[in-house]
């Protein structure tokens, strides 16, 4: 320690002893400025979460629309829901659809996760990356793609019918919906199971090997039994997502009259000329009870699952198992899922956007056209919807990420008494289906006194608020782990050195969280770019986004232009993610 001996030199001449008293921070009515921020954030979050929920519950027990004076309390809405509106059949459809979807998604995802993460199949990286595709493509676009290829008049269907003389499948059934939805949701279950596999202790498998277990024995005696918690959790996740989904049931069920929860709300709230708000409120309330219960169970499971995380000293790289000839079977099956589930429908949709008619009966190259794009670009309403989507996604991404960052830091790194409540509020929108957010906010805006609601109703701000509520949990979830990685002694040191909580946040945590904040912006942008369901009720003719415009064009039968808009949306997302990736990488190098 040569440097230590240096201090033995005579003490440096110091300026005359001077005291540096600790700073005093101003308090307003006994509350310091940090507390004021805590309460402000909790109020903002509570308003955002409760605004769509409370009017919905209230409407469900009123006999008249909320904006009509003189309504009385009644349970009649619930009675009529099951007698007149045939909600029982809808609930049954939803249950069958959600169960089928869950089973199929798990059957696709779990073996794939095990094979890709833990065995020596060729192309592991490519398959792993391919499972990211739903990040770029919304389930609405996937539905368009599937109908374009596999629908009654789809490209593949026509060819199959020509060869076999009949079509062995029918997309417009509950089973057809469930298969498509499962293809769309399988990657979510996959990511969850793959992460669990990566984090599990590889030495457990090593221990199995040392006692003489072969690859299959290890697979069935060690790996699969340990997969139970992630499988249970991701099943619940897929189940609750398919309970509230709108896109595919809307596209497939509408022509043949099969209704599930979301399409029931869509039809009763939008399609009928004089919507029955009582029934709409009652149905929304029942759906909310289901989704909230499911999300609560998920949260409980996730908390319990953390207790099973095995503590390891070193990160050991697991040895990959060799499945022999079975690995080629696996490769074929996974390729089948990726190619037929996602790649062909999306490429088909892109091809559709460049052709007049898209059918195997005529060489598509002969009917190449740019008319579909011209249609979009000729009409200002269509261009406006692209602009609107861009505005909503970019403004929303910044606002939501800022709110999420502040919420994370308060929930994780503050002495605030109600910090747990902040976390619950930020994650609560997971339990709020997009359509119900739309309906609820629509009612909430009509509640704002002095015509304040009219200022928001039908503007892009209404859309930003609706989409923002939906995107908040993703943003929160992406920042939270980063905040937990910053040791709390860093802020404690700053506190003792004289910084109050606000200064710690601005000077320390905000700077250290910048990369996570950037990532949250990218994620939120993409989520809000794909979102459309709250806009169905909140939008006006001037505030259509790409999603709602696509639906309109689809109903009009203008499938070529739908394909063109979908291609736009995919391209915008890909370009944005690409640029953001480059920017962030550049920052890291600097």
């Amino acid at each position, binding site marked *: 320690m040569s440097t230590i001996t240096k201090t033995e030199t005579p003490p*440096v001449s110091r300026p005359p002893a001077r005291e540096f008293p600790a700073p005093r921070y101003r308090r307003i009515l006994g509350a310091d400025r940090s507390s004021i921020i805590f309460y402000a954030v909790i109020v903002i979050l509570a308003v955002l979460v409760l605004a769509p929920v409370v009017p919905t519950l209230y409407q469900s027990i009123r006999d008249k629309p909320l904006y009509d004076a003189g309504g009385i309390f009644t349970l009649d809405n619930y009675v009529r829901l099951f007698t007149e509106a045939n909600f029982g059949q809808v609930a049954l459809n939803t249950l069958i659809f959600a169960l089928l979807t869950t089973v199929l998604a798990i059957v696709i995802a779990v073996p794939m996760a095990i094979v890709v993460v833990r065995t020596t199949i060729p192309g592991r990286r490519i398959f792993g990356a391919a499972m990211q595709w739903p990040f770029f493509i919304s389930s609405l676009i996937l539905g368009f793609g599937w109908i374009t290829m596999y629908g009654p008049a789809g490209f593949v269907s026509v060819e199959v019918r020509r060869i076999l003389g009949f079509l062995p499948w029918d997309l417009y059934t509950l089973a057809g919906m469930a298969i498509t939805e499962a293809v769309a949701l399988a990657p979510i279950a996959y990511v969850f199971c793959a992460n669990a596999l990566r984090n599990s202790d590889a030495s457990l498998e090593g221990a199995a090997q040392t006692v003489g277990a072969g690859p299959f024995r290890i697979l069935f005696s060690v790996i699969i039994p340990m997969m139970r918690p992630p499988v249970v959790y991701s099943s619940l996740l897929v189940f609750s997502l398919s309970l509230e989904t709108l896109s595919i049931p809307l596209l497939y069920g509408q022509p043949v009259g099969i209704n599930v929860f979301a399409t029931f709300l869509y039809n009763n709230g939008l399609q009928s000329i004089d919507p029955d708000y009582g029934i709409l409120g009652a149905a929304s309330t029942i759906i909310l009870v289901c989704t909230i219960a499911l999300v609560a169970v998920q949260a409980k499971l996730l908390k319990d699952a953390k207790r099973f995380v095995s503590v390891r000293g070193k990160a050991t790289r697991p040895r990959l198992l060799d499945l022999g000839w079975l690995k080629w079977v696996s490769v074929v099956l996974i390729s089948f899922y990726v190619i037929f589930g996602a790649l062909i429908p999306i490429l088909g949709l892109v091809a559709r956007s460049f052709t007049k008619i898209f059918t195997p009966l005529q060489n598509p190259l002969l009917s190449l056209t740019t008319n579909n794009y011209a249609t979009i670009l000729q009409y200002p309403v269509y261009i406006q919807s692209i602009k609107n989507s861009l505005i909503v996604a970019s403004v929303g991404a910044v606002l939501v990420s800022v709110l999420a960052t502040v919420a994370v830091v308060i929930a994780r790194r503050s002495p605030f008494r109600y910090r747990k409540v902040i976390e619950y509020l930020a994650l609560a929108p997971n339990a709020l289906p997009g359509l119900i957010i739309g309906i609820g906010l629509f009612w909430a805006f009509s509640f704002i006194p002095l015509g304040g609601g009219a200022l928001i109703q039908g503007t892009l701000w209404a859309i930003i608020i609706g989409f923002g509520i939906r995107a908040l949990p993703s943003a929160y979830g992406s920042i939270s782990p980063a905040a937990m990685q910053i040791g709390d002694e860093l802020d404690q040191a700053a506190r003792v*050195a004289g910084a109050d909580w606000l200064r710690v946040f601005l000077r320390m945590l905000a700077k250290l969280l910048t990369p996570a904040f950037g990532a949250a912006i990218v994620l939120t942008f993409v989520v809000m770019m794909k979102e459309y369901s709250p806009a169905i009720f909140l939008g006006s003719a001037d505030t259509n986004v790409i999603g709602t415009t696509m639906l309109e064009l689809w109903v009009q039968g203008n499938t070529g232009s739908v394909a063109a808009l979908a291609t736009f949306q995919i391209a915008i997302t890909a370009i944005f993610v690409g640029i953001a990736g480059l920017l962030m990488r550049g920052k890291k190098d600097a």
Partner: protein
Amino acid sequence: MPDVVVKNLRKDFGGTTVLHEVTFTIKDGEFFTLLGPSGCGKSTTLGLIAGLDKPTSGSIAVDDVVFVSDRNNKFIPPEERNLGMVFQSYALWPHMTLAQNLAMPLNIRKVPKAEQQTLIRDALDKVGLAHLIKRYPHQLSGGQQQRVALARALVYKPKVLLLDEPLSNLDAKLREQARVWLKRLQADLGITTVYVTHDQEEALAMSDRIAVMSGGHMLQVATPHEIYERPATAEVAAFIGRSNFLDGTVVSASNGTATVRLEERGEVINVSVSGDAQAGEAVTVAFRPENLHLSATATNVPNGAIVLPVDVLTTSYVGSRYEYDLKYGDRVLIAESSAGTVSGAAKLVIPADAVRLYPRADVVSQDAAELMAVTH
């Protein structure tokens, strides 16, 4: 100058009490150490002094300033207490250079820029790191980071310095040197210091006074010498240094001497006691291994010494001395000796002044008891 006065400090965490009504006073300029195993409440106490946590009840005052008190519900947040603190992880802000790290507390106190520069240079000089002023924390070694953390805690001349196991992340050799250096620096500055550690050697070497803590209680507050030579309880004797413990029962007591029957083999011994002992009381007899004599035959036994018949189980050379594991009844006793030649049946001589008597206490952990039981 500041005395730290802590009264009836108590902290509950969700139903369990981690700190029981602790009271102590730290004198101006004193190096005061909170010593104990993990979970004993020492870090909780330090956090309460710093203001990082609120006590359930009790009060803390420095000088005449009340930091926290349950009487009038007063609580001064950490940023307004003007303390310096060094954390176990050093907690240097990774996005700032050393100069910026040290400048932060000065900026908050609105110290003019020019004065800041002298203060920062002085503080870094004190820890011998002035030449690294433009570096970032991750470019320094662990020992250097620890000294920067100290400089940052001292640069604004706080009233009290709080140190939370600052040496525990250094390797063993460096830790011993840093110990001496830190003690000298503290003495030079004369700053009142509260030091938290689980390392008894560190505590003994550096402190003016030590508070030994266990299970949220303060067992003894005294100088290092007093703590080692006259442990107040059997737990302190077990935690500071090493001790042999034997269970016994008081047969009779008079004039500061107790006659005790050892339970293991029924020997009767005489032990001098400071307080009073009652006949029939269950007691624990403690003696340190370094105060014992081991020989094949007990010759030249000093007056009043106790002689126990033992068998040598193992002899280990631990550098500069030998350590014996001795079988006494079904128990294993440890003795240190400069000679490593004793084997087989032997006599263990315990001088009268080496023995201390405590109320019966279970100080040996289950694990240790199982390892020490003679099963063969």
